[in-house]
């Protein structure tokens, strides 16, 4: 098991800044995901750690030792690629054995290790199959087994599931996590899929424009986004714009509403314009009888759309605060239709403020 420290990594491609002074600490045995949109620099960071790219400045420390002077084949890092990377001329077993063959391990040891790892990833019966005889999911499992065969100090995964269909993706990500926990290997995982990152990681680094916007546990990232980018990128958020009325009492005026913001990080002066974020699941709806006004603290909204998502239905609303999305139980949503007028209630304890 190893620790990884990225210190001030900078990498430019012409005028494009791929990494801009990136810092990141990965603890021993930890599963950390680099999450971000295309072009945010997450793959570049991973490839620098792997030794396939070099930074213009900065350090990559593994167990406290700078590895930038080492070529990729000396770093002892297992890597699973986004593209199918199995050697087409070799069977699954020989693919897994490849790294051990390079290390001149005995035939018996190679065969034993390949069998163990292929069984670990559920492919004990497919050892003699060539990559062309395996499905995409199976190929990535073999690639995972192959990367683990060399007993790497660090496991690097570059969007390994993005080419797979949704169901296999969910199944395989759980398998990747199970294997990682079983072996306790320090893992750096690159993905643009927030659900994937949040579901399998110990910590997630949300990246944008070559920098880490926020680094924390999945719950911290989801429940306490610190920047507007994180709030917008991770999950679905409603954004409200308001003006601070009272700094001490954390009261913000949003349209006709005076909202009390419980966010302990609230640090804005009176008169300052702030953005408030609230998730759709923190908004509840009540049906209004004809002509009735909403109760105090609630405001009215008109249903503009209904999107069935299984257990919940996402309701689009037109309100005085602007368009909002609310997630309600699909059973409750049966009573709703377009243009239904409802009373809207914000869970004020879930409000987050971010300065503009």
């Amino acid at each position: 098991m190893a620790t990884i420290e990225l210190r001030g990594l900078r990498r430019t491609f012409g005028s494009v800044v791929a990494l801009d002074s990136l810092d990141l600490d990965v603890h021993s045995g930890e599963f950390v995901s680099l999450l971000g949109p295309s072009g945010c620099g997450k793959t570049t960071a991973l490839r620098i750690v792997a030794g396939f790219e070099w930074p213009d400045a900065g350090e990559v420390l593994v167990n406290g030792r700078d590895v930038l002077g080492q070529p990729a084949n000396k770093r002892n890092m297992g890597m699973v690629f986004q593209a199918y990377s199995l050697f087409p001329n070799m069977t699954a077993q020989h693919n897994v054995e490849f790294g051990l063959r390079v290390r001149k391990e005995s035939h018996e040891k190679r065969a034993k290790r390949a069998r163990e790892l292929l069984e670990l990833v559920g492919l004990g019966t497919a050892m003699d199959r060539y990559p062309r005889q395996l499905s995409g999911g199976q190929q990535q499992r073999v690639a995972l087994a192959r990367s683990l065969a060399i007993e790497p100090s660090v496991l690097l995964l570059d969007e390994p599931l993005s080419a797979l269909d949704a169901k296999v993706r969910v199944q395989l990500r759980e398998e990747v996590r199970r294997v990682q926990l079983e072996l306790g290997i320090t893992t750096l995982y690159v993905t643009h899929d927030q659900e994937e990152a949040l579901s399998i990681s110990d910590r997630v680094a949300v990246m944008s424009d070559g920098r880490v916007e926020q680094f924390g546990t999945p719950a911290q990232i989801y429940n306490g986004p610190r920047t507007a980018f994180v709030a917008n990128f991770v999950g679905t958020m409603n954004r409200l714009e308001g003006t601070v009325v009272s700094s001490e009492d954390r009261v913000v005026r949003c349209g006709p509403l005076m909202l009390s913001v419980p966010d302990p990080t609230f640090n804005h002066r009176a008169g300052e314009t702030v953005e408030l974020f609230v998730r759709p699941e923190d908004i509840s709806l009540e049906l209004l009888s004809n002509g009735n006004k909403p109760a105090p603290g609630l405001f009215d909204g008109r249903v503009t759309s209904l999107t069935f998502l299984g257990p919940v239905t996402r309701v689009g609303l037109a309100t005085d605060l602007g368009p909002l999305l609310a997630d309600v139980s699909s059973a409750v949503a049966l009573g709703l239709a377009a243009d239904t007028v409802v009373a809207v209630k914000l869970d004020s304890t879930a409000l987050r403020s971010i300065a503009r």
Partner: protein
Amino acid sequence: MAQVATVAETRPSSHRFRRARNRVPVWHLTWLVLAALVFIVPIYSVVQFSLAGVQPGQSPFHWYLTVFDDPMFRSSFWLSIQISLETVAVSLVLMVPTVFWVHLRLPGLRPVMDLISILPFVVPPIVLVVGLLPFLEKITWLFVRPEVLSLIYVIFALPFLYRALDAGLRAIDLRTLVEAAESLGAKLPRTLLRVILPNLRAAIIGGSLLTIAIAMGEYTVASLLEFSTFSVYTYTIGTSTAYEGVALSFISFIFVWGAMLGLYLLGRGGRNAAAVAITH
């Protein structure tokens, strides 16, 4: 029971459907026959002519036997084979690492390589040789040896071998395969030998076959440099004895077909052979 009856009832119609599906349209067959005739008629004519003009009591294969008995045939044939194999070896040693490196590390040079590779098409062989002669003449020990032909044929074969290797490398995810091998600890020579070359087998075989065909059939340069290769010998015989010349043409046909078949079989067995090689 109802289900069984339904299956039984549908069987004849499904047979009819399959027959209809398998039926080849008449115009497809017509074009196929016409295309076959274009190839078969000249070959048939060659065979027929090579068996004609035989005196009573002589073997119908008289001209073939005469050719095989001629020591010049054997020496020119082996010389051409030797030159072909040398050309293939030199071409592969030069081109495989070059094209591999350009694809992997210098993709910006690919258009330049494309341009260079078509130069032998643009410059006529005679012009190329006349241009090369003053240079080759200075290397006297080489100039008098048939190996000089191999070096010139490497240039002639360049477009064909380059295209074959280029297509082969485009067909695989070269960068990912190389990086995967590197991450497992392999150095580049091992990666090339164990991972890339086995996956380029078809491209290498195809390119080699074309190189052999060029080296076996080249006449202009060999004649100019006064080497008695198979094509020079065939031409010489053809000008004196037409029957023998045609028999020689057919022998060269058979040789090229045999080489093609052999290389095709080698290519088909490639994957398994490569896998077996890895285990040892």
